[in-house]
């Protein structure tokens, strides 16, 4: 399992592996927002938490169709399915690797982009905490979506359609925590609920992802 994890990391980090693509997308979305709504700092700082969360979510979404597709094409998934580790573990490891290569950079980059959007000083810690707690859920849910659409030729758009409604609870609690933090309110309640969702999703969704993958590998 650790070997699989390291292999996924290595593949993602190699040139053309897609690492940094999500990050660049996140950067561009954040930079485009002031162009589209105007440079007024008051408005920007009010919407900053929401924009950063949305940007992180879209960046996550963007990298999902590569999550399993490459392994599907070259037959690695068939090998993994017959390997002595359960498929549930495989999808969990895949989701973890996806988070480390996509979610974690977003969490680290978010404060920098927060400066660009005039995020209020007390908002940084809740923003980073909520992203750190929430992006794993995005990776796990995304793995489920990727597993559903892995056999399809043009799965990318369908993948977004399927995954976006599933992202709603995570987005609501994550953005709410970041917003409350930025407005100087106590973000503890949404943060706890967010953590609850992440734990719940990480515990149960790999079962569904593995079941779906088994169907697709039949």
């Amino acid at each position: 399992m650790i070997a699989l994890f390291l292999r996924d990391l290595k593949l993602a980090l190699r040139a053309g592996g897609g690492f940094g693509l999500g990050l660049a997308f996140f950067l561009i979305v954040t930079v485009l927002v002031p162009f589209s709504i105007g440079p007024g700092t008051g408005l920007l700082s009010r919407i900053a938490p929401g924009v950063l969360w949305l940007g992180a979510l879209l960046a996550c979404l963007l990298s999902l169709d590569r999550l399993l597709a490459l392994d599907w094409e070259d037959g690695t998934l068939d090998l993994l399915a017959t390997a002595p580790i359960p498929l549930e573990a495989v999808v969990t490891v895949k989701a973890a690797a996806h988070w480390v290569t996509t979610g974690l950079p977003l969490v680290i980059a978010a404060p920098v982009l927060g400066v660009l959007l005039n995020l209020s000083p007390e908002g940084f810690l809740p923003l980073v905490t909520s992203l750190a707690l929430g992006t794993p859920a995005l990776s796990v849910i995304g793995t489920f979506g990727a597993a559903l659409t892995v056999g399809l030729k043009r799965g990318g758009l369908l993948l977004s359609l399927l995954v976006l409604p599933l992202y709603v609870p995570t987005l609501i609690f994550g953005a709410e925590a970041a917003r409350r933090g930025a407005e100087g309110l106590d973000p503890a309640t949404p943060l706890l609920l967010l953590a609850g969702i992440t734990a719940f999703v990480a515990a149960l969704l790999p079962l569904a992802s593995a079941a779906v993958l088994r169907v697709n590998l039949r």
Partner: protein
Amino acid sequence: MSIWEYANPKKFLTTTERALPWLWALAIACLAVGLFWGFFLTPDDYRMGATVKIFYLHVPSALMAINAWLMMLVASLIWLIRRHHVSALAARAAAPVGATMTVIALVTGAIWGQPMWGTWWEWDPRLTSFLILFLFYLGYMALWAAIDNPDTAADLTSILCLVGSVFALLSRYAVNFWNQGLHQGASMSLDKKENVADVFWLPALVCIAGFLLLFVALVLYRTGTEIRARRIQALQTRERAAA
């Protein structure tokens, strides 16, 4: 004689063929009576005026939007556990009907909200939940349409329906947390005190029956269509194999 006999497509087709004319007639009769009663014969509400008449459409369609998803959930579970093809096809057949019901609930709600709340759309928990439900219907139908192998499609959509149900419920509570709404509470609860007056309630009940019967008739008919479509596919494959 058990309900599982209807898992046989032939048996299903012959039985529904006999029941469907009655169902159609009953559904249309209930809808006609209920809507006529509601539209022409009920008084205006002292607070909402004539707009109360919209509820004979809004409440039943909203109920059916949720119940259709529940029916799909049950049918998906039956497919996953007992592998009856009819069950999977019934879930597929119900999805567009449920989506239509969701749209009706949303549209009537928006038209009603315009004069009452002063806005077409409000990010109110119930409205938002219905929008999310609609997205789930869309995703479910898109997944069915995207996969060629019927058994794979049935498996994948069933699991999506299961996972989607959990997330729809989660979203419902998340949305509640996110914004307190304008929408009134349950108007159809069995608790008499909170209930609306009988004058409004009885025609609404007939309308609910009409929507329910229409839904059942549509789903049975559509399931029959899906069974035949599946058979066409099977015959064509056999033909190609023979050629």
